[in-house]
């Protein structure tokens, strides 16, 4: 049982110079949640740039019809690796990274519940990522040359069976993602145990910051949704290595079964990915509006509802496989139901801003753009959920547009908001606000120019995953515009990277609490010491620092 306080055994950190190898060792051998969190986030950013460069090549290839920039095989590997990397090696470590860094700080704990498990989770995730990328060298195809997987990010069977996917590229896909999945499960268990068991005195579940709530629900979804993927990947490997027949249609196996397994994972997965953005918005918007989060209980209820409903909508990715009309109707209905709790979230964020004093620093700018863009993305999602409409839109560029609106214009925007917001805490220095604004505007313009035209390509019948197209089908102009958007996106990302690196060295010292914020992490020093809190804080409301700063008008009076 956790006690009210326990004496700190560790000695105060001595100020002394570290050599390079010592620093390296400190990072590699660390079990500190903050270091692990930063390492997650930095590796996610690295993978984002790698997969972003792949996306650039994809867009260049598609800029004009009949382009010969890359061969069909290369193109197919590019989008497979782009999608796989973005989902599993960018999105997932962002979840783990933010949760790791912030959950213990926000609940007034000194570390995660299982620090060593935590380190294990990170390293096995990274190992999985390297395994996937090793395929470029070792994934001997028929000719012996290296070859990355080229089966698409959802790797539909039977295309992945040994009969159609020679060599070992698909094995790297299955094993790499399987292994990194174990890392995600480890970190999810850790987040839940931390949030349940290590809350500081006085922090009841109803006072837990919204961020932590969302992350706990997110971890729950991970625990329930990742095993189906692992199961599918194990079955696939049994097929490929031992000659089993799970997805072998020649032996009576079912191709649709893989799709069910994958999407039972895959749909909850997209909410796993978007939840960190929800979590970040729920912290950033109140601070920059100077108002508490509107309708806190409803916000908690909404994430829980999204979590539940998201388990029962998976076959909306399979409207074209020829389900019965009852199946189609059920999954169309359940998909639309998700719109209700999601709407509640959007409305509550708006209401939080309503009547506030909005301070448009970079974090809030990203949040506002998120709100517009995610609204659009959600509404295109509703269009897809209308099964008859989806028969037209499925596997077309409209779907590509929808999910980039959710993932890039949603998730990535939320992440940028979070990175700017907690940068001063994690680094101890302020980022450059002017560069932040440049980043914001360039990126917002760029992604909209890239992804809005793709909706129209879908209406004009352009399927996704095609390496080239012939002219005269009305697709040239939209494709060209879409590619041009990268002219804005790339400088935006470069500015962002420069801002992060440069400010870490030259930025103004930030102080403990640069945003005049209300949650616990702003009460300790920036960056926080290894043990976070010398003495465990005691809280009496969900905004402990507000209570301190406004002793006449504390929150706990209203609880």
């Amino acid at each position, binding site marked *: 049982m956790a006690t009210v306080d326990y004496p700190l055994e560790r000695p105060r950190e001595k100020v002394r110079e570290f050599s390079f190898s010592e620093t390296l060792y400190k990072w590699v051998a660390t079990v500190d949640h903050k270091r692990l969190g930063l390492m997650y986030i930095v590796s996610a950013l690295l993978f984002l740039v790698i997969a972003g460069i792949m996306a650039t090549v994809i867009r260049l290839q598609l800029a004009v019809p009949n382009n010969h920039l890359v061969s069909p095989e290369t193109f*197919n590997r590019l989008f497979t690796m782009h999608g796989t990397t973005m989902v599993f090696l960018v999105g997932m470590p962002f979840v783990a990274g933010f949760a790791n860094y912030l959950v213990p700080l926000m609940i007034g704990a000194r570390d995660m519940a299982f620090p060593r498990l935590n380190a294990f989770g990170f390293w096995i995730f990274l190992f999985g990522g390297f395994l996937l990328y090793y395929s470029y060298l070792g994934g001997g195809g028929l000719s012996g040359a290296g070859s990355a997987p080229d089966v698409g990010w959802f790797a539909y069977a039977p295309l992945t069976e040994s009969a159609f996917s020679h060599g070992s590229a698909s094995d790297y896909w299955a094993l790499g993602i399987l292994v990194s999945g174990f890392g995600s499960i480890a970190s999810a268990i850790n987040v839940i145990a931390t949030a349940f068991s290590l809350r500081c005195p006085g922090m009841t579940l109803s006072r837990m910051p919204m961020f932590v709530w969302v992350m706990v629900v997110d971890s729950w979804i991970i625990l329930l949704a990742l095993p189906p993927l692992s199961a599918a990947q194990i079955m696939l490997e049994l097929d490929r290595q031992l000659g089993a027949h799970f997805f072998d249609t020649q032996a009576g196996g079912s191709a649709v079964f893989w799709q069910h397994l994958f999407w039972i994972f895959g749909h909850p997965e997209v909410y796993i990915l978007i939840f960190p953005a929800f979590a970040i918005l729920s912290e950033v918007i109140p601070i920059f509006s100077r108002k508490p989060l509107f309708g806190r209980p409803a916000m908690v209820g909404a994430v829980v509802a999204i979590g539940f409903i998201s388990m029962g909508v998976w076959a909306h990715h399979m409207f074209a496989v*020829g389900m019965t009309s009852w199946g189609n109707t059920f999954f169309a209905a359940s998909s639309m139901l998700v719109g209700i709790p999601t*709407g509640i979230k959007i409305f509550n964020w708006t209401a939080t801003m309503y009547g506030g004093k909005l301070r448009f620093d970079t974090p809030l700018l990203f949040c506002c753009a998120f709100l517009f863009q995610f609204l659009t993305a959600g509404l295109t999602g509703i269009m897809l959920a209308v099964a008859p409409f989806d028969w037209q839109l499925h596997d077309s560029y409209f779907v590509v547009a929808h999910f980039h609106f959710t993932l890039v214009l949603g998730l990535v925007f939320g992440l940028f908001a979070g990175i700017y917001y907690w940068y001063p805490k994690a680094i101890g220095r302020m980022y450059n606000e002017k560069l932040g604004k440049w980043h914001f505007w360039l990126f917002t313009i760029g992604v909209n120019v890239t992804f809005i035209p793709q909706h129209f390509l879908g209406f004009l019948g352009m399927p996704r995953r095609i390496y080239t197209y012939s002219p005269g089908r009305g697709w040239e102009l939209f494709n060209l515009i879409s590619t041009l958007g990268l002219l804005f996106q790339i400088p935006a990302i470069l500015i962002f990277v420069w801002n992060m690196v440069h400010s870490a060295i030259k930025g103004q010292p930030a102080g403990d609490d640069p945003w005049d914020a209300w949650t616990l992490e702003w009460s300790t020093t920036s960056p926080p010491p290894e043990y976070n809190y010398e003495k465990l804080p005691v809280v009496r409301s969900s905004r402990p620092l507000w209570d301190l700063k406004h002793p006449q008008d504390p929150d706990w009076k209203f609880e």
Partner: protein
Amino acid sequence: MLIQLWALLQVQVPGVPERRIQDIFKPMATPAEAEKNVALLTFAITGAIFIAVAGLLIYTIVRFRRNPRDTSNQEPPQIYGSNQIEAAWTVIPILIVFVLIGVSARVIAAVENAGPPPATLKVTLIGHQWWWEVYYPDYNVRTANEIHVPASPDGKTATYLTLESVDVIHSFWVPELAGKTDLIPNRQNFAWIDPREPGVYIGNCAEYCGTQHAKMYLRVIAQTPEDFNRWAAAQQQPQQIRGNMQQAKAVFESLACVNCHAVRGTSAAGSFGPDLTHLRTRQTLASGALVNDEQDLRNWINDPQDAKPGCLMPSMKLTNDELTQVVSYLQALN
């Protein structure tokens, strides 16, 4: 290559316009029409939601931005929530969602359960990496990549498609005629179309199926019933080779082509590749990758991997002479 594909643009069946630009909002058959109608309704509803919510957001952002002259550290009133408001924006979306669910359910049932009109032509469409096998069981006609169907201006006849696959998953999609239905190995799916007007409707394989997924085009050629019957009757004939082709025929039959291709009435009976019996009557080669003229045919047989890298027909390394003979033979298959 580029020139060839530009040439593809020019291919026209006399009398039938080619519809290359496939707009899902210009449906030309009943299923696509139903899908368009539900799409428009969805647009209206989601559009209204967008305007309302985005409007509210813009208002909030503009109205409540911090006044730059306001340097006081005065915090705004702290509002924690309101159950009435919360209830309102829960109930209204629930109502909207129920409307949407009702509408989709109706259209799903309408398209899926309502069978096609009674006078139907049956066609079995079989997916291959990366071409379509088209089989007319009632006529015992087998062709590839182009589905000839009678047009149905009054909506009284339709073509009923049975969808199968021999290898991986493909998907049937001709945007102006019908949304997608997958072709799945070890499973049968169904779809139906009733093109309003004669014309060539271009579609694509819509499920990623491997290297050449991109060049797995599909053509639905809708003709007047008379034209269609004439076509079907001609297709039923086995191949009769006039005298001066005997030598070319012999060359063809001596090559490995016969392991993969069939020409009815000859010894060629392979089934791995498209049936070539009436090759000359098709508009394109290799599921729309090339035009079906002498030049392209020659290039194709010389090196299929050039036009369609990765495709499953190997380069047969024919001598120049063999090539000429084979091409002239295939050119005669009409």
